[in-house]
């Protein structure tokens, strides 16, 4: 075997691969890695290398030196230089010699990056092992053996094991078989205290209390552990713990991202996730509701809120953007979230070109894209349960008043008919005009023209502006102008405006006209009158304009009064406000140019809120302009909805339609004003609710095109919605819409969905998934460490009705999970990352849990579940200029909200909460299914010096002095156990007490002022427990700070 030494392969870089291949590595000095066990897998290890590095020159398109390496027969046949591969004789194989750069010939790949030594080693091993190249494995069109992850999982047969007594459930059989194969045995079970702390951190993300530990220790029933599992799975904190992980994948955050990064109120979605997990909503339903809850029959508020999953994309409201560009960015982001988070396939790779490794074409990517491409980006009002109850009773109250009216006036029907007959049935004929918008005049906002002649305002909501629109018309005369403000699902609360509650205000409506044949003869059109279908009372806005003048919104006359302080407002002040509106402006003199008129409209919108958040805008959301030549035109006072009903033959109107007409008509009857006022009062009591970004399906199909290189300006062929051929087929019945896609994702035959999920849950427990790359089960992923276990869990999960709690129960009751995490250096050497699972998991907890542990140990934790996100303590300067691009709201939380769990901390994407960021929490800028796990000095500075950690140390000290017992050792044990659950060893006690004494002396000597250390900044000095001194409290604060900074405190063992 001397020849094997003829080329040296450095060992560096090889070890990582070795660990997964289970090769034993000979020392570096011998130069050549030699496999003593483990088999190189062609499909996994070799084919990707050939595809990536060789086939472009030795494949279907080029056959340099007549060699092809894309199919078995061609490769074995060789090329001009002879046989490339001699099975069993690596060093005699040209393939190896050339990639290793041996001999005279140039090293392959020619002109490319040389293969790394580990890869060359793999090729050598593969040839040595006989160059096994499955007949079915080809490339580029040849029949390819299906990648394991694309074959639906089936329940594997469980292996036989020698130590059957160890097996608690089938997980263990599969794990143990692998260990026994390797001559290893599992670790003993962890002691009870360690186990309970592990279980608590895993299931609810909080450490167990001393009482919980003692209860578990005292429970000698055989069901003791299972009882703890059920207790924790039943805790509402379970949903917080595992919900946070889903929120990573769902890229949840509380702001829009990009430079303005405005806050968005979407915590209903976060609470929906927590609630869904707590009630163990089956995972298939969990996915269906998030993808298409709005399309379910009789969709509930909850199901609509769930679609917030897709809306967690960032939104660019920077001035001057092309809104379609960023809608596309959001679409790509959604695709990636579905790919990583649900499918476990890197579909986003095919956004620009066919996937390089997985059999997904670019066209197939856009066919999947088409499923999601037909929705409005809606923002709706949502109500808490309490609000929903109140809402129901108010709506009922309104109906009751109307019924009362009808009962008191039995002739109402006849009177209403008479009213209807008396209505003007010959309204003016309006001609819709859709002028050219001068983009220069919009302050970066875009007016998107729609097919019905209207404009939808999009993009930056930025500043006050006076949009200029110009059109040439042949119509004459022109006597009046109509402005319709329309509702649209793409507007907040449906519009018609862009303010946070969907309203708007029009400061001035101006028109200029010029004859087409004398365009320079421009004259301002003087308006004689303005009418509208809403006559709001004048209302003063706060804040006032910059000059300090009061600003009013009110009747439509305000829009033609020439004053910038006044505007036509369309806000009813109640949730009833989101209605289409119209105004008609009548010219004093009709415009009459026989050869056509150039009309220029100016719509001034200067009633923005003037805050830095951009949330105060009152821009028009969707508008349409019309003109008429008829004299005396006025705005139809009837709401559009009512006018539509009246156009239906009276005999064909439904009860509900009649009621709606009545609801309007009653407001026109003067003597019913007391009743009308009672109803208005009820509307005023209606809760405003909270907002949520959701999807709502469009009526008209939006076309989807293949985009060349993913560029939305280069649309190619139009495609219809469909699924890639390498995955399971779409159900044949029914429409191919977003709901069908949702069902397809969680189809029982979906090969990757269940595997992806169980793999990620496994990763949550053991730090590494059974497939390491939990976002990608595709061809570039590593083979699972335990393929049978992955499949068994996936099948079991589906057969148990996709129940997540059931999956958790399975894993935490396995003997595998319950092993001790202690290991010898020998064990760490052999399996540094615990891929064989011969011991229990041990690693630092997630960012939020780091914080939660300090809060729980100190007793500060405020355990309330759900609700608006909170502004946890953070340096204020981070959220204002110059640190931040814009001034952000950060009203530091006081009281209980200061100590809410990390999941409730408000998340700005551009200014992540520092403590969470330092401990690797993702920012929400893209989907994340695997957090990094770093260990850094900045983390140490945080737990040492960050205010909340110090407040926790103070609280733990106070609590210890109060409840910890009478002597210092008892107290020490108490504080220690609150942090790490177990009892301290004698050595630990000695060291900690020595520290305590030393600090007491220093405090007594006046080195540090005790109240500086132990006093709360927030409240007055705490009352000291009887018989204790400030020096004691300060010394215990110092000690508590040490305990909260221990590696063990923030680690799961």
């Amino acid at each position, binding site marked *: 075997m001397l020849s094997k030494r003829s080329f040296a392969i450095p060992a*560096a*870089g090889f070890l*990582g691969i070795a660990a997964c291949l289970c090769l034993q590595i000979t020392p570096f000095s011998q130069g050549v890695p030699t496999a003593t066990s483990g088999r190189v897998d062609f499909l996994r290890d070799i084919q990707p290398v050939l595809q990536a590095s060789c086939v472009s020159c030795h494949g279907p398109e080029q056959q340099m030196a007549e060699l092809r390496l894309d199919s078995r027969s061609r490769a074995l046949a060789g090329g001009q230089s002879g046989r490339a591969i001699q099975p069993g004789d690596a060093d005699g194989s040209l393939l190896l010699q050339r990639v290793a750069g041996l001999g005279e010939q140039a090293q392959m790949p020619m002109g490319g*990056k040389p293969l790394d030594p580990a890869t060359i080693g793999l090729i050598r091993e593969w040839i040595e092992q006989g160059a096994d190249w499955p007949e079915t494995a080809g490339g580029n069109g040849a029949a390819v053996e299906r990648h394991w992850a694309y074959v639906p999982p089936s329940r594997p047969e469980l292996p036989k094991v020698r130590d059957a007594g160890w097996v608690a459930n089938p997980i263990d059989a599969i794990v143990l078989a692998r260990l026994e194969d390797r001559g290893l045995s599992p670790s003993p079970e962890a002691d009870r205290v360690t186990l309970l702390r592990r279980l608590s951190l895993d299931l609810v993300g909080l450490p167990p209390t001393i009482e919980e530990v003692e209860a578990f220790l005292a429970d000698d029933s055989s069901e003791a552990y299972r009882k703890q599992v059920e207790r924790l799975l039943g805790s509402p904190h379970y949903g917080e713990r595992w919900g946070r992980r889903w929120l990573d994948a769902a890229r949840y955050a509380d702001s829009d*991202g990009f*430079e303005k*990064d405005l806050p968005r109120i979407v915590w209903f979605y976060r609470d929906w996730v927590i609630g869904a997990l707590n009630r163990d909503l089956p995972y298939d339903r969990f996915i269906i509701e998030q993808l298409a809850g709005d399309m379910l029959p009789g969709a509930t508020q909850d199901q609509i809120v769930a679609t917030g999953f897709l809306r967690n994309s960032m939104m660019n409201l920077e*001035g*001057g*953007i092309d809104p379609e560009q960023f809608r596309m960015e959001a679409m790509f982001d959604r695709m990636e979230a579905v790919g990583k988070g649900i499918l476990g396939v*890197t579909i986003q*790779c095919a956004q620009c070109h066919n996937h390089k*490794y997985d059999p997904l074409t670019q066209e197939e990517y856009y066919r999947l894209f088409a499923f999601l491409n037909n929705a409005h980006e809606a923002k709706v009002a949502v109500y808490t349960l309490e609000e929903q109850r109140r809402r129901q009773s108010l709506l009922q109250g309104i109906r009751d008043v109307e019924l009362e009216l009808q009962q008191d006036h039995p002739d109402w029907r006849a009177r209403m008919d008479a009213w209807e007959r008396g209505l003007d049935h010959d309204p003016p004929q309006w001609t819709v005009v859709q002028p050219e918008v001068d*983009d*220069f005049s919009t302050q970066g906002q875009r007016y998107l023209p729609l097919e019905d002649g209207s404009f939808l305002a999009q993009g930056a909501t930025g500043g006050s502006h006076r949009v200029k629109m110009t059109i040439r018309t042949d119509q004459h005369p022109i006597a009046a102008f109509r402005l319709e403000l329309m509702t649209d699902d793409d507007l907040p609360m449906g519009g018609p405006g862009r303010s946070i509650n969907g309203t708007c205000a029009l400061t001035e409506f101006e028109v200029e006209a010029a004859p087409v044949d004398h365009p320079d003869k421009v004259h301002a059109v003087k308006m004689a009158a303005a009418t509208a279908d809403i006559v709001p009372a004048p209302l003063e806005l706060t804040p006032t304009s910059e000059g300090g003048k009061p600003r009013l919104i009110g009747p439509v006359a305000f829009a033609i009064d020439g004053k910038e302080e006044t505007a036509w407002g369309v806000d009813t002040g109640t949730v009833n406000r989101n209605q289409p509106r119209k105004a008609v402006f009548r010219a004093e003199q009709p415009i009459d140019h026989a050869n056509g008129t150039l009309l220029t409209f100016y719509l001034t919108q200067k009633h923005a809120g003037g805050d830095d958040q951009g949330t105060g805008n009152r821009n028009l959301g969707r508008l349409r302009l019309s003109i008429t030549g008829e004299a005396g035109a006025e705005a139809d006072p009837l709401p559009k909805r009512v006018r539509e009903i009246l156009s239906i033959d009276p005999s064909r109107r439904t009860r509900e339609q009649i009621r709606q007409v009545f609801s309007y008509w009653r407001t026109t009857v003067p003597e019913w004003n007391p009743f009308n006022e009672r109803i208005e009062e009820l509307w005023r009591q209606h809760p405003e609710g909270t907002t949520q970004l959701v999807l709502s399906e469009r009526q008209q199909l939006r076309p989807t095109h293949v985009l060349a290189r993913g560029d939305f300006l280069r649309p190619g062929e139009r495609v219809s919605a469909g699924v890639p051929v390498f995955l399971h087929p779409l159900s044949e019945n029914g429409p191919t819409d977003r709901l069908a896609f949702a069902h397809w994702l969680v189809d029982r035959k979906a090969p990757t969905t269940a595997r992806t999920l169980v793999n990620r849950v496994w990763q949550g427990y053991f*730090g*590494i998934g059974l497939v*390491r*790359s939990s*976002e990608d089960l595709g*061809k570039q992923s590593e083979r699972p460490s335990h393929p049978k276990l992955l499949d068994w869990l996936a099948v079991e999960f589906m057969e148990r009705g996709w129940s997540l709690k059931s999956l958790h129960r399975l894993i935490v009751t396995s003997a595998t999970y319950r092993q001790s995490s*202690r290991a*010898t*250096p020998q064990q*760490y050497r052999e399996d*540094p*990352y615990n891929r064989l699972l011969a011991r229990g998991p041990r*690693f630092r907890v997630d960012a939020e849990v780091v914080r939660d542990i300090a809060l729980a140990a100190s007793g500060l934790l405020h355990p309330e579940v759900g609700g608006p996100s909170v502004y946890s303590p953070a340096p204020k300067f981070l959220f204002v200029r*110059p*640190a931040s*691009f814009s001034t952000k709201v950060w009203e530091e939380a006081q009281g209980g909200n200061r100590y809410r769990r990390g999941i409730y901390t408000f998340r700005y994407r*551009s*200014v992540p909460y*520092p403590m969470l960021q330092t401990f*690797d929490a993702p*920012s929400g*800028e*893209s989907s994340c299914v695997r957090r*990094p*796990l*770093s260990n*850094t*000095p*900045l*983390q*140490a*500075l945080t737990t*040492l*010096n960050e205010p909340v950690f110090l407040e926790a140390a103070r609280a733990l000290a106070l609590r210890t002095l109060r409840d910890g017992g009478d002597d210092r050792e008892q107290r020490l044990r108490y504080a220690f156990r609150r942090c790490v659950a177990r009892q301290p060893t004698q*050595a630990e006690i000695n060291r*900690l007490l020595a520290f305590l004494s030393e600090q007491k002396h220093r405090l007594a000597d006046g080195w540090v002022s*005790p109240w*500086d250390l132990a006093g709360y*900044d927030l409240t007055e000095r705490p009352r000291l427990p009887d018989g204790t001194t400030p020096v004691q409290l*300060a010394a215990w604060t*110092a000690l508590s700070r*040490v305990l909260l900074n221990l*590696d*063990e405190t923030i*680690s799961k063992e």
Partner: protein
Amino acid sequence: MSNQDQTGITDPHEISRRWFLAQCGVGLGSVALGHLLGETGLAAVTEDRRDPMAPKAPHYAPKAKNVIFLFMAGAPSHLELLDHKPQLTRFDGTMPPAELLEGYRAAFIDPHSTLLGPKFKYSRYGQCNAEISEVLPHLGSVADDIAIVKSMTTDAFNHAPGQILMNTGSQQFGRPSLGAWTTYGLGSEARDLPAFVVFSSGSKGPSGGNACWGSGFLPTMHQGVTFRSAGEPVLYLSNPKGVDSGLQKASLDTVRDLNRMRLQAIGDPEIATRINSFEMAFRMQSSVPELMDISKEPQSTLDLYGAEPGKSSYANNCLLARRLVERGVRFVQLFHESWDQHANLTNRIETNCQDTDRPSAALIKDLKQRGLLDETLVLWGGEFGRTPMVQGTETDGRDHHPNAFAMWLAGGGIRPGTTLGETDDLGFNVVKDKVHVHDLHATILHLLGFDHTRLTHRFQGRDFRLTDVHGTVVKQLLT
């Protein structure tokens, strides 16, 4: 051999354990750790664990060891500063040729707006006869030390995407920044300081936010650490009230002893890493304030920059940048967000130049006199350029313009006294020696000793690189 260690490690857990001495942007001496592990019998475990922040050799001998990127966020006007267009003065007030605007998208204005002549005069500077605006006289004084690129071009014309592209090579969020790639490739020579330090001055933070210095899919330790030149320089660096240095030291000693006991009992090498993290944190508590204290700099140096101890300014940040590279910090980035002149361009450019011209030039001079310029690459520039067309009627302004803009570079293997590239007579399009952002990135990596196609990181089943599938080294800029 190449950076073969830079592929294949994608697992977070593995990263943590494998990079046993791993520190957030901070390289560590490993003597203490080796000792610790020896005690616990874990020494052998560490054979395959190296400090990811230990200085690493790049692909070939580098010209530059450090980078200082003066990022002029908001996008300064090339037409007023570095790209002299006399023809634009001539055509002031006229419409641009229609064919120029075909397919052109502007952010705010109707591209069919009149041209606006440059607002400042230009002068010739140095032996190289470089043409530089009158508002940059200090830059003129170092003209022979810098290379001006007039032919930059980019793909984005909105701020956040433009800044993300300039800083990460992609308009999409989630990619590692230039600084992160640099420390990933080279490690750090700073023992007690982060490898990648970020400052921000100007009126507000950059549009791209934290993503401008993020680590993307690289390990978190590669992200830039923000320093502030006034107040607490690093978040949570100072001891809290009531904790004096004696208590801090005693606390850390106790934490270390307890952690050691646990390491003995449990055997998890991660605990040793934690011990080192705490020691490093303690060292940073003294090294960072020492670094930030510019009051001991000679008055002549302070004057050179226009720096004033205790203030927060771009000038102070420039001086701090020099102090950082002196201490082995690999990548320093100064964000100065104040260049978005949609209106009032003349006045605001003047003000901006008063704030930035002297300190930027001082940095070149100071580095040079200390012999640091040769190994430090300095870059100055924003995310895109400005339109030759005017924005606004009552005032002077320019809109965003991706087609052409200008930057300057100095030191670290850049050929001094060079002017590269040309735009057309209006400064609208590049007509000669186009340098795309990807090409700039390839060139920066080249100067740092990397083949930009080979500095890769495996993520989601694919080898990613800063330049994606683009980028050509700009040879004309090299010495």
